[in-house]
C-alpha cells in the first residue's frame, strides 16, 4: 500500500496537517483515502513538522502526542512472524516491487530480440542483484540442462577437446567483479533526449561477481597455437548461436573467463546458464551466453553482430568495425530523471562510474551544468573494469534550477567526454558507445528531468 499523491499537491513541499487546518481539496483527498493511507498521510505531516518550522504549529497540534508509527504498536511488534524456510528461495520485500527490469516501449517489436533495462535508480553499492541484471537476447532465452551442456574447443589447437560443466567446475576457479554494458547503452540519447529515467538512459548496465576459469588456461591445456591463433570465435548454444570475434591479446591477459557463477550462485538462465564467456571491459555482446564453442583462428570472423550490428557509423559514412571497449563513463543515479526530491535540505548525490580500460581513479560532480566541479568520494574497494560507486554530500536549497553532472576519470588518465566533444568527432548517428556526460535538471519543485546541456 503506497502513499497516494493527490494531483493538486506537490510532493516535497511542507504539507499542512490533514485535520483542523486543511484546504477543501485536502479534506476531499483524506476522505477518499483508506485508513492505511490516512495513517501514512498523518505520519508524513508529522515528519514534515519535525524538520520544517514553517508548518510546525498546526502539524504539531495534530500530532501532539507523537508519531502514530511509534505510539500505535503495529502487528509485527505484537504478533508472531513467519517461520524459517517459509520461502525456501527468498524474495525481495513486497514493498520493493517497483524496482524491476523493464522494456522501453517502442524500442523493439519482438520480446525475444529485445532488451530489458536494469533499475539503476534504486540500486546500492556496485553489485547488481542477479534477478535485476539487464537482459539482451537475440533469439530468446533458455533454461538449459547443465548435465547436457558441452564446451568444445577447436581450430588452431593441438587437441580439439570437449568439456562438461562437471569438468569445468573441477578446475581452479577465480571470482572477479566486472560490469557488463551493452554497446548500445545510452544509444537512444546520441542525438537528443529520448527517455525519462536512468533506467532507460543507462540501464543496459549491470555488475556482478563472476566465477569461472580463465579461458587461456583451458586453451593452453588444449595446446593452443598462440603464434598463428590471434583471434577466437565464441559461439552460443541457443537458436541464434551468436558469435563474436575476440582478439587473443584479451584472452592472453587472463581476464577472459569461462563463467558459470554469478553473485555466489550459478548464472541465471537469462544471463547464460550454465556457461557464458565474460570479456571484461568489452561490450556485453562479446560475453557470449550459453557458450558452446571456442574456435581459435588466424583472422576475424565478421559475424552478423560485428558486420551488420555493433558497428559505429561515422560522419563520413564509414562504420567502425570491431569496436569493443566500453570507454570510461559515469552517471548519477540519485537524484536522477523522473525522481522528485522530498524537501529542500541535505542529500547524498550518488552514482556509478566504470571503465573498460581499467579502474576508476576519480569522479567529479557539477551542480551548475559543468562550469564548476567538485571531487566526489570514490568508494573502495575499486575493482578493475567494474562498476564503482561515488558519493558527494549536497544541500538542495529548493530554489531555482540545478544541473547535475558527473564526470569520471580512469587509470589511463582518460576523462569522460561531454556530448559536444563526442559529437565533434563522431556526430550523433553511431548508435553505439555513447559514453557522454549525463545531465539531470532539478527544477524548483524538486522534479528531476533528463536534459542535454550545450
Amino acid at each position: 500500500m503506497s502513499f497516494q499523491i493527490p494531483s493538486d499537491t506537490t510532493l516535497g513541499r511542507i504539507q499542512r496537517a490533514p485535520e483542523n487546518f486543511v484546504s477543501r481539496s485536502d479534506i476531499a483527498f483524506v476522505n477518499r483515502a483508506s485508513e492505511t493511507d490516512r495513517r501514512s498521510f498523518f505520519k508524513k505531516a508529522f515528519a514534515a513538522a519535525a524538520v520544517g518550522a514553517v508548518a510546525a504549529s498546526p502539524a504539531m497540534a495534530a500530532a501532539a502526542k507523537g508519531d502514530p508509527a511509534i505510539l500505535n504498536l503495529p502487528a509485527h511488534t505484537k504478533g508472531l512472524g513467519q517461520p524459517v524456510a517459509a520461502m525456501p528461495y527468498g524474495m525481495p520485500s513486497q514493498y520493493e516491487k517497483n524496482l524491476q527490469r523493464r522494456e522501453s516501449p517502442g524500442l523493439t517489436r519482438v520480446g525475444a530480440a529485445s532488451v530489458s533495462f536494469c533499475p539503476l535508480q534504486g540500486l546500492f553499492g556496485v553489485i547488481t542483484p542477479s534477478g535485476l541484471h539487464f537482459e539482451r537476447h537475440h533469439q530468446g532465452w533458455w533454461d538449459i540442462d547443465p548435465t547436457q551442456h558441452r564446451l568444445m574447443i577447436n581450430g588452431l589447437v593441438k587437441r580439439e577437446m570437449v568439456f562438461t560443466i562437471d569438468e569445468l567446475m573441477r578446475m581452479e576457479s577465480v571470482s572477479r567483479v566486472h560490469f557488463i554494458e551493452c554497446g548500445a547503452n545510452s544509444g537512444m540519447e546520441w542525438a537528443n533526449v529520448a527517455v525519462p529515467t536512468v533506467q532507460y538512459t543507462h540501464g543496459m548496465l549491470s555488475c556482478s561477481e563472476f566465477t569461472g576459469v580463465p579461458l587461456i588456461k583451458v586453451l593452453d591445456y588444449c595446446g593452443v597455437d598462440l603464434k598463428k591463433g590471434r583471434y577466437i570465435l565464441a559461439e552460443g548454444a541457443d537458436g541464434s548461436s551468436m558469435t563474436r570475434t575476440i582478439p587473443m591479446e584479451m584472452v592472453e591477459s587472463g581476464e577472459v573467463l569461462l563463467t558459470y557463477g554469478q553473485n555466489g550462485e550459478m548464472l541465471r538462465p537469462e544471463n547464460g546458464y550454465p556457461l557464458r564467456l565474460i570479456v571484461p571491459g568489452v561490450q556485453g555482446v562479446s560475453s557470449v551466453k550459453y557458450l558452446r564453442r571456442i574456435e581459435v583462428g588466424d583472422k576475424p570472423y565478421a559475424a552478423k553482430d560485428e558486420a551488420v550490428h555493433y558497428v559505429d557509423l561515422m560522419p563520413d559514412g564509414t562504420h567502425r568495425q570491431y569496436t569493443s571497449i566500453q570507454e570510461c563513463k559515469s552517471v548519477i543515479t540519485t537524484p536522477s530523471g523522473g525522481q522528485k526530491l522530498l524537501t529542500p535540505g541535505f542529500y547524498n548525490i550518488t552514482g556509478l562510474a566504470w571503465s573498460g580500460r581499467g579502474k576508476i581513479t576519480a569522479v567529479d560532480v557539477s551542480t551548475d551544468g559543468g562550469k564548476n566541479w567538485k571531487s566526489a568520494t570514490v568508494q573502495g574497494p575499486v575493482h578493475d573494469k567494474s562498476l564503482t560507486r561515488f558519493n558527494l554530500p549536497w544541500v538542495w536549497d529548493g530554489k531555482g534550477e540545478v544541473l547535475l553532472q558527473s564526470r569520471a576519470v580512469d587509470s589511463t588518465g582518460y576523462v569522460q567526454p561531454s556530448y559536444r566533444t563526442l559529437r565533434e568527432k563522431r556526430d550523433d548517428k553511431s548508435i553505439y558507445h555513447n559514453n557522454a556526460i549525463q545531465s539531470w535538471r532539478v527544477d524548483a519543485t524538486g522534479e528531476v528531468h533528463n536534459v542535454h546541456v550545450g
Partner: protein
Amino acid sequence: MTIHLKFDQKPAARPNRKGIAAVLSMVVLGSTLLFSNSGFAFEGLGRIATGDEVKAWDIDVRPDFVGLPKGSGSVQKGMDVWEAQCASCHGVFGESNEVFTPIVGGTTAEDIKRGRVQSLKDGSSPQRTTLMKVPTVSTLWDYINRAMPWTAPKSLSTEEVYAVTAYILNMGGIVGDDFVLSDTNIAQVQGKMPNRNGMQSNHGMWLASGKPDVKEKRCMSNCKPDAKVISYLPDYARDAHGNLIDQNRLVGPVRGVVTVAAKAGESASAPKVSMSSGESLFNANGCVACHGVDNKKLGPSVVAVANKYADRKDAKAYLAGKIKTGSSGVWGDMPMPAQAHLSDEDTNALSDWFLSKKK
C-alpha cells in the same frame, strides 16, 4: 570453421578415458613448454572431440569463405523459400520494418560499383538496412545458416541457404534474376557488395590498449559559460514510459514522479500482474511479432480470429492445429509459419486464450 594445425592430433575414434589420460600424461611429461602459461594441466579433464562432433558444431563461415560448404542455390528457389519462411517477418521484398529493421533498400547501382553506400553519408535512407551496412557476403550466409528462420533456426538445407542468400542479393540488385549462387562464384559476388569498402578499423576501441579518439580536459572551475539546456523530453512524452512513481522505491530520499494520473478508486501504484497461461505463451513465443490482440499486424488480430471461429464446434482443436502446423491463404497472402516446437498443452492453452478474446 578454421584452418587446422598441421600437427593436429586426432584419435581415429572416440577414445576411452584411459586412452585420453595416457595421451595427456605423455604430453605433460613430453612438453613442459606446452603448459608454461598455466603452470599446470587439468589432468584427466575433458576429452578429444570426435571428427563428427566438430563437424556438427563448427558451422561458421569466414569472410575468406573458410568453412563454406560446397553447394549452390538459385534466386528462383530462394524466392520460394523466402515467401514460405522469411516474408512473414521480413516482408515480401525484404523491406518490412514491422518486426525487424529492413534487409533490403537504400543501396544503388553506383554503390555496387564503388563499394560504398552513399546514403550512409547523406542520410537519405530512412532506415539503415542490412544491405546498406553488411560488407561481407559471408556474413549473410553464415547468419542465415545458423539462426534463420526465426522460430526454427538451423532447419534450412545448404541449398536453401545459398538460395535465400541469392534472393536477398537479387532483391538488392546485386545479382540477376537467373543467378545461381555457389561456393565457386561467391567470391565474385563479394566484389559487388554495396558496402564492401565501408568498414574501417583505424580506431582505438578494439583493444584496451587502443588510443581513444577524444580527449576531454579535466577542468575544475570556471570551465565554460553558463550551461544551456539544448534538449529535453517534450511534455507529450511524459508518460511514454509509464507511471514513474511505480518505478521508484516507496522510501528513500526521492520518489518517482507521477506521470500518469490515477483513475478514481485505483491505487496509483497497483502493480500490473496476472497473466493467463495462454497470454504468457502468446507473449513468450514471438506471436506478438505478427499478431496484435486488437490490431491487425502482418497477421489477423487475436480478436478477429476469435470472432471468426468461436462459434465453430471444434474451434479449440481447429485453432490448436493451425498454430501447430501453420496456415496460409485464410487471412491473406502472408503464410503463418508452423509452430511445431509447441506442445499440445501449449497450443490448446493458446487456442483457449484466443477464443476467450471474442468480442
